């Protein structure tokens, strides 16, 4: 049998691994997914706006532009046929409203896929964490040490 101290040392190492590596990875994955979800919601909002313009048949419209810090100035859009949409990587494409809608659905699907990947990754990390913790718990049980901490996520 290994000495008690050695076991304790191992346990400590596992715990730090869980806390410093796995949990951080998990957080990163979830954050990245959140960013993607934000983008998806933005696109969905844009799609909704375009739908409104189309539904109302607006050829020109008035709106208010935020100059920053909630200072609004009136703006007039003379022609609503075309819209510049951010297609990613800093590019904006001049699209018609219909094209824009089509692009947004595609873009949304793509983003969803990426988000799912992140979700998968996150659940994997979670599984790893659980595994390590249970292994630690087993060792501790064998050593008749107090029950493991942080078992439930």
């Amino acid at each position: 049998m290994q000495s008690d101290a050695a076991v304790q040392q191992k346990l400590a190492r596992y715990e730090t691994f869980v806390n410093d590596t796995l949990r951080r990875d998990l957080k990163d994955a979830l954050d990245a997914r959140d960013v993607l979800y934000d983008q998806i919601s933005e696109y969905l909002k844009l799609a909704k706006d375009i739908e409104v313009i189309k539904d109302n048949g607006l050829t020109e419209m008035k709106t208010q532009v935020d100059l920053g810090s909630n200072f609004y100035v009136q703006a007039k859009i003379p022609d609503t046929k075309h819209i510049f949409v951010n297609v990613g990587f800093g590019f904006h494409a001049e699209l018609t409203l219909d094209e824009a809608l089509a692009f947004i659905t595609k873009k949304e699907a793509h983003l969803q896929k990426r988000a799912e990947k992140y979700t998968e990754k996150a659940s994997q990390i979670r599984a790893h964490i659980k595994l390590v913790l249970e292994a630690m718990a087993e060792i501790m049980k064998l050593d008749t040490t107090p029950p493991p901490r942080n078992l439930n996520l």
Partner: protein
Amino acid sequence: MDRDSETAELANYFSKFSAALTRLDEELARWKNYESDYEALKTTLLDLPKETSHSVMVPFGNLAFMPGKLVHTNEVLVMLGDNWFVDRSAVQAAEIVDRRMELVQENITKIKAQEEAIRTKSGVAPGLLGRQEYNEEGLPIVEITEPYFSDDEEGAEKKETPAGLLPFSQKTPEEQAADRAILDRLAELEREDEERERRREAGEIVTSDEETSESEEEDYDDGESEDEHRPKALDSDEEYEEEVWEHSGNESEEDEREEDLSPRKTVRFADQVAKAMKPSQASSSSSTIKTKSPSDIFDQMRSKQQAARNTGSGPMVNMSNLESTFSNLMGTPAAAPRKKPLIVEVDETPALAPEAPALKSSLKPTPKKQSLFKQSKIQEVVEKPLIKEVVQPAAAAQEEIQQPPKKLSKFAMARAAAAAGGSTAPAVQAAASSAPIIAPSAKPAKLGVSDLVFEREVPSVAPTMPGFSHVVERNVTPAVVKETAPPTSSITGFKDVVENTFTKPAPAKDVIENTFTKPSGIPEVGSSSEGRKKSLFRQQQQQPQQQSARRMLPESAFPDSSYGLDEGDEYDVTPVPSISARPPNVVVASSADKGKAPIKPAMKTIPVVASSKLRDTALLKGSVVEREEIESVDEDELEDDMLMRQVVSEYQERRQAMIAQHGAFNREDIERIWEQQVVIPPGMMIPETPIEIVHDMDEDDYEEEDDEEEEEEEAVQETVVDDRNQPPKKLSLFRAARLTGSLSKQE
């Protein structure tokens, strides 16, 4: 364990501070962000109404935009907060932005102050936050570590001897060689003496007979005689004691005979200088040459060292002794022109400065006039740095170069810093003109001066001034040669020249500078001075009063001159033409300058009456400076100046008091301290800076803020007591609060 707990505490301390700091940093970043936003917004707002419409890409959500135009550019809808909007013109909106900016700035300064406070607190453990500390010059604070060599201290005393060789370079090679030989001998003697001391400590006996014989024979390096005695001493204790008695008796006898010869008595020398130097003894001593033998000098040196070692103010002790010696000497009939006075003078010098002069003078058993002259000159050189050092802080740079005036100005400095070096020169003049014999009278003056200097001098030996000594070195040789060639008349002439120089300090300096540049011209100058000598001398003799009146620089009522005069009568004995001791560079200067038109007096000199009355010692000693030509002073200016000073000092005083009381000066700091310390009784109103919310601020609020800020600024400056000023009032309130709080506690 203690250490562990300390470490833990420190870690805790650190974590708290770092947490607070990160929080503040975030806050600060947020506010900075607001600031930049508002700045951008303001420029936009001001640019907006310049045109009726701007074509822009109108943002359509975050991801899209459409080409469009900004219309009604002078109408801005501003959100005041809580979804309340107001329609403002662009300029009005810009004003709102301004007010918000002020708020933002205030918050930023507050946060910075907080951060600063935290950092100051963390300064208790420097480097705690891993930050390099900087001093007020922006340089990183580092610990100064210098290697310590214990050898330095030990060697310092021994180094004194080499240090004394300062004027060494002025000697001819032969003289230098002789000096070196003597020095070697001295070193040898010292070794010998130390060895003897050791033996004595070890319980061995060295008879004074032996010592005397040794010193008389100058047979220092063999231990034969000692070997003879030692077995005897070791035979029995009784014998030993007997011997001690004998020797002590012998010693006392020898004390009278040859005071300075036995190295053993050197210890006593410092205490008994006066006795040792008693003129009667000196005259009755076997020969004057004996007194001047190397051993004598050695004794002197040793005594000095000892004195320096034993007492922190060694020089001072020596001084008193020397003074008593002086008085003794004055009492002596001036029988023969012995070298004794010279020696005394020499003694005086090394008391503070390097001992080399002493050595030199004593090196020559029968010094000629020339050599004496030279010696005294050398002494002068040695003295010079000292005096210079003393005077330097007060005297102007120009005055520094002129040695004699400076010497005296040291005295003047003590009374009034404004008194110039030039004003002091007349002291010498007074002495000279009043006494028919010029040469001797001038010397006492000098002596008096040097005395003075020494009395005031701090024990520390002044470092040599390289530049100055350089000048002297250059000029000395030719001047000396010139002076020594013609016997007496040249000396008097020289004196005259010197006097003239003293009266015109400013040009003297110029010439000295000239000599610096072209030393080759010095011999010529010297000769020219010779040619003029006689006439000048006569002039001076015939009409001293006129001369004094003619001088551009008014004479000062210098008390020291009286001192010099008093001693001068007694010192007439001295054959040494001490005038020659004046720095030769001065001579050169004067001679070169004689042709020049009247010279402006030194700028800082206080004009003083040049009347014969002033030579009255009583008057002079009263340290009263009479003014004849008083420079017109602008009274208004003076008054203003005084007022200004008063105000400033008051302000500083108050400021210091405030800092002393609260440990801070900023209002915020003080407030914080109050908050921490003061127990505020209920009902006590404390005006406090409102906590600002950026967005929900009314315009009126902003204005109020402005007022308050102004008041704060006033408070910080706070030069005059003003009721409107908030902080003083607050101060008193808080003090009262604290008082009441403490009172209630006591109850």
